[in-house]
C-alpha cells in the first residue's frame, strides 16, 4: 500500500500508530499459532520417555542433542526404504510430467488442428473434476493394467493427469516468439528439433517451477500410495508403521513426523521465489 498523506488530519498520527501496533500484534499472534505445534513436536522429539512423561509440552528438552528417537523412528518406520521408493516415484513421474506436459503445450500452442477447442475444453473440465470422485474407476483401470501394488501405478497416475503443469507451460510458450520456430524451420529443422533444441531450453523456468511444486505435492501425497501401493511404503505412508510397538510413544512419533516434514520445509526455504511465482502466475489474471 502507498503512503502519500496530503493533509494530516488531527489525531491521524495516533490512529496510525495504534493501527500499526494492532496489525503487528496480530501478525505475531498468527505466527505463534502457526509455529507452536511444530515447536512442541521438536521439543517432544528430543526428550527421553521419562522426560516426556514428566514435563509439559512447552518445556524445552534437557538435552538438545538427544537423537535417540530419530534413530528409532527411522529404523522402525523403515524410512530408508520409504525415502528410496519416494525418490524413484518422484524422479520418474517428474521426468514424465515434464516431457508429456511440454510436448502437449508445444502442440496446443503452435499448431492449428481440428478438435483443438475440444482438447482445450476437455482439459478445462478435467481441472474442475475432483480426482476422488472417479477413484473407484481409476482403481479398476490400474487393476486392469495389472499394475496394482506397483510403483508404476503411482507413476502413471502422477504423470498422466497434470493439467496445471500444461497450463503453466502454455503460458510460457506464448511468450516464446513464433519467429524463432520459423527461422529454425527455414534452416531445415523439423518439429522435433525445434521442440528439443528451442522450446525445451526456453521453457526452463517453467520446468523448474513445475519440478518444485509438483515434486513437493508428490512427496506429500498420501491417498495414492495408501491405495495403490499397500505393500511397499513411500515416505508418506511410513508413519503408519508406528502403529505397533511405538504406536503410543509420542516422542518417537514426533521424531518420525519431523523426519518426514523437514525435507519439504528445507526445499521451501531455499526455493520460495519459484514457488510463489509458479503458484500465482496463473491465478491472478
Amino acid at each position, binding site marked *: 500500500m502507498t503512503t502519500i498523506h496530503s493533509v494530516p*488530519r488531527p489525531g491521524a498520527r495516533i490512529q496510525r500508530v495504534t493501527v500499526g501496533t494492532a496489525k503487528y500484534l496480530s501478525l505475531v499472534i498468527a*505466527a505463534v499459532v502457526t509455529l507452536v505445534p511444530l515447536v512442541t513436536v521438536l521439543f517432544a522429539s528430543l526428550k527421553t520417555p521419562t522426560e516426556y512423561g514428566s514435563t509439559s509440552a512447552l518445556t524445552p528438552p534437557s538435552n538438545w542433542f538427544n537423537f535417540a528417537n530419530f534413530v528409532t523412528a527411522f529404523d522402525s518406520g523403515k524410512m530408508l526404504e520409504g525415502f528410496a521408493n519416494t525418490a524413484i516415484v518422484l524422479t520418474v513421474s517428474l521426468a514424465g510430467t515434464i516431457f*508429456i506436459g511440454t510436448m502437449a503445450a508445444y502442440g496446443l500452442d503452435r499448431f492449428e488442428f481440428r478438435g483443438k477447442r475440444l482438447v482445450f475444453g476437455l482439459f478445462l473440465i478435467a481441472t474442475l473434476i475432483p480426482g476422488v470422485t472417479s477413484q473407484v*474407476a481409476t482403481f479398476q483401470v490400474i487393476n486392469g493394467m495389472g499394475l496394482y501394488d506397483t510403483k508404476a501405478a503411482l507413476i502413471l497416475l502422477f504423470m498422466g*493427469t497434470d493439467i496445471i503443469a500444461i497450463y503453466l507451460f502454455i503460458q510460457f510458450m506464448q511468450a516464446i516468439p513464433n519467429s524463432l520456430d520459423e527461422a529454425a524451420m527455414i534452416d531445415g529443422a523439423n518439429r522435433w528439433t525445434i521442440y528439443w533444441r528451442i522450446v525445451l531450453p526456453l521453457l526452463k523456468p517453467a520446468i523448474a517451477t513445475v519440478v518444485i511444486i509438483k515434486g513437493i505435492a508428490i512427496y506429500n501425497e498420501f491417498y495414492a500410495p495408501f491405495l495403490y501401493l499397500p505393500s511397499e511404503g513411500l515416505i508418506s505412508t511410513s508413519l503408519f508403521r508406528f502403529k505397533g510397538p511405538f504406536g503410543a510413544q509420542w516422542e518417537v512419533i514426533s521424531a518420525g513426523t519431523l523426519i518426514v*516434514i523437514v525435507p519439504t520445509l528445507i526445499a521451501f526455504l531455499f526455493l520460495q521465489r519459484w514457488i510463489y511465482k509458479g503458484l500465482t502466475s496463473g491465478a491472478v489474471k
Partner: protein
Amino acid sequence: MLAPSILGFTVFLIAPIVVVVALSFYDWNLLSDPEFIGLENYRELAGDERALQSIGNTFYYVLLNIPAQTVLALALALAVNSKVKARNAFRVIYVLPWMAMPVALGVIWRWVFDPAYGALNRFLEVFGVDGASWLTDSAWAMPVIASVNVWQYTGYTMLFFLAGLQAIPAQLYEAADVDGASAPYRFFKITLPLLRPSMLFVLITSVIGSFQVFDTIHVMTAGGPAGSTATLNYQIYLESFTQRNAGYASMLAVILFAIIALITLAQVSFFRKRTVYDFS
C-alpha cells in the same frame, strides 16, 4: 506430440468419469460381474442415514472451513502487504504448514488433541481446566478437524490474496488519499472489488479442496465418532474400498460431482455478474 497427454487424460481422467457414471446404475462388489439395477442406488440413498449424514457433514465442514480460512487469509495478506518489519519472515512462517505433509501434520494434531496425553489438555490442566475429549466427542471432532485445515491452508490462501493485492494499481490509493478517503472506504471501495479475480480463484479452489479432504480425517478420526467426521468424500472411500460397494460408491461420487459442479457454477456466475475492472 499431444498423443501422450491426451492418452493420459483419457485413460486416467475422462474414462474413469464415464465409468463412474455408468457404474452408478449397477450393483457391483468388485469381484463378480456388475449387475444392472437402474436407479436403485439413487433410490437407496434416500433411506441411507450414513450417506445423508456424510452429505451434511461435508457442508458443515465447508462452512466451518472456508469463511474462517478466507477471512483470516485476507487479513494476513493485508497486514503482510503493508510495510511492516520482517514481512518476508512472516510470510514464510504462514506458508510453512502448507508445505508440510498433511498426513504427518494429522499425526501431530491427533497428538495435540489426545484427551489424556495430548499437549492441549495437559496445557489446559495447568489452569485447572478439564479439556474435552476433542476427537472422540462428536460435537467437537468436526470443528477440530476444520481448524486443523484452517491452520494448514490459511497461509497458502494468503499467497493468492497477496498476489492480487500487489496487482492493484497504486494510483488508485493515491487518488483516494487525495480525496481524503477513510481506511474502511478504501478497503470496501478499492481493495475488495479489485481482489475479485483472486477471490474467485481462492473460493473455487479451496471449496473444491474442502470437498476432497481425506488425509486429515483419515489420520485423526477415520470418520468417527459415530460417523460425525465422515464427509461425502470419505464415505465414498469407505463404500468403495472397505465395503466394496462399487456401484453404490459410484452413485455417491456422481452426487459429489453434481454438488461441486453446482457450487462452482454458482460462484462463477455470482462473481461474473459484477463489474470487471481492467487496468491492463
